[in-house]
């Protein structure tokens, strides 16, 4: 399979604290990778360094053959190809669900309104919210808002979607509906990099789990290897604790 993303030796420092101390990994087309680790280990920063929402201090990132981190790269063109799903959804509050999903195809890709509307309805249907097209974000539950935000990312036909703790802001009973959408995406072959504590999701669809701590990748491997025989004591410890906390059963 083709390589889609390469992240090479990413460093990021906030003041005195170095939150990323040289992170390197690759993703193939159609892969789902899950990044786990204690909070404050730079997982979200890593995602943001990939599409340059946060500029990395050092290191390079490529999307296929194009170097994202190169100063002469048109970052808006790159971002249009990389979906980003936020923990806090960040739906545009002044637009209904439909408007949220079609705005980027129209404003970034220059798609015609009718075409963008058709596409947006399709994507809303895909996340099970075809009947909520006219609802404003404030009228939707957290789970529904997050599904709209996934539809919003999908409408740009991204090569890759970055998920930054997509279920962490949700009430427990709403997590399932979002995970279900994500599982389906993974099965359809979308390339996904997911920061999450949902081990059930990781086990079900991740091709690889990346365990990060203190700004470095401690260990990575397939879910079965990571859960059954972690190489580092710290990995096993964390996985046990997180599984307990999040009541992991699948």
């Amino acid at each position, binding site marked *: 399979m083709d390589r889609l993303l390469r992240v090479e030796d990413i460093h990021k420092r906030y003041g005195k604290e170095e939150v990323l101390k040289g992170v390197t990994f690759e993703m193939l087309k159609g892969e789902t990778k899950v990044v786990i680790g204690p909070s404050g280990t730079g997982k979200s920063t890593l995602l943001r360094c990939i599409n340059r929402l946060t500029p990395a201090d050092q290191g390079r990132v490529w999307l296929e053959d194009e170097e994202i981190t190169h100063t002469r790269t048109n970052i808006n063109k790159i*971002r249009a190809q990389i979906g*980003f799903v*936020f923990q806090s959804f*960040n739906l*545009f509050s002044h637009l209904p669900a439909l408007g949220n999903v079609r705005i980027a195809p129209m404003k970034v890709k220059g798609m015609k309104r009718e075409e963008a509307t058709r596409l947006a309805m399709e994507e809303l249907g895909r996340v099970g919210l075809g009947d909520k097209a006219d609802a*404003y974000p*404030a009228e939707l539950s957290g789970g529904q808002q997050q599904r709209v935000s996934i539809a919003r990312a999908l409408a740009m036909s991204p090569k890759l979607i970055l998920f930054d703790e997509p279920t962490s802001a949700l009430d427990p009973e709403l997590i399932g509906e979002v995970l279900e959408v994500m599982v389906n995406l993974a099965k359809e072959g979308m390339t996904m990099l997911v920061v999450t504590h949902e081990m059930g999701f990781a086990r079900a669809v991740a091709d690889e789990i990346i365990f990060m701590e203190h700004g470095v990748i401690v260990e990575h491997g397939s879910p079965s290897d990571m859960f059954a025989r972690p190489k580092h004591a710290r990995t096993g410890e964390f996985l046990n604790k997180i599984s307990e906390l999040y009541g992991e059963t699948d």
Partner: protein
Amino acid sequence: MLRASLINIQLLAALIAVGYLVGTLVALLQVYGGRVLKAIANLYEWIFRSIPALVLLFLFYYGPPRFGLDISAFLAATLALGFRSSAYQSQIFRGAIECIPSGQMLAARSMGMSRLRAIFTVILPQAFRLSIPGWTNEFSSVIKDTTLAYAVGFNEIMRYARVIQDSRYELAMLAFIAVALVFLLLTGAGNALMGGVERRFRIPGLQMPGSGSGDHCR
């Protein structure tokens, strides 16, 4: 006299429009401008918020002819009061823009919008709605300022009343009461109109803090 009040309404419309456009620009520079642009915007705001309206009127009316520029009373009043209003309006907009959670800009940028496009498609539409209440307030303040324009010989309602005062002194009080009534009506109608605008553009969950369940300005 009622016809004269139409002149006040014209002046009001013109100065609000000037204030709106310039105010938006000033607010944008204050929030998104670099250090230099920000300083210029702040200086502008300081100047036009500090100088009394009457003094500004005189400066704009009697100033340009000194440099050989002919300026009508209407234009002078529009610019003087418009710029003044823009300084106040800029603060309404700035407050509204700063109330919008940073995640909105972040989300827009993450989809490939440029900063400028994000400002116009995501930030401003929200900021305009949030600033309607402040704008209503500004409207009811500047509508009264339009009477100041009589001081530069502008044929608006207050000048009309002063003419009556000069020619038929016994009617002066009556004339001023009539002016007061006209403004009571105008402001009342204007506020009702703005209330309608506010309802018309209301969006669930998009409000200034203190006016409902909006969670802005955290």
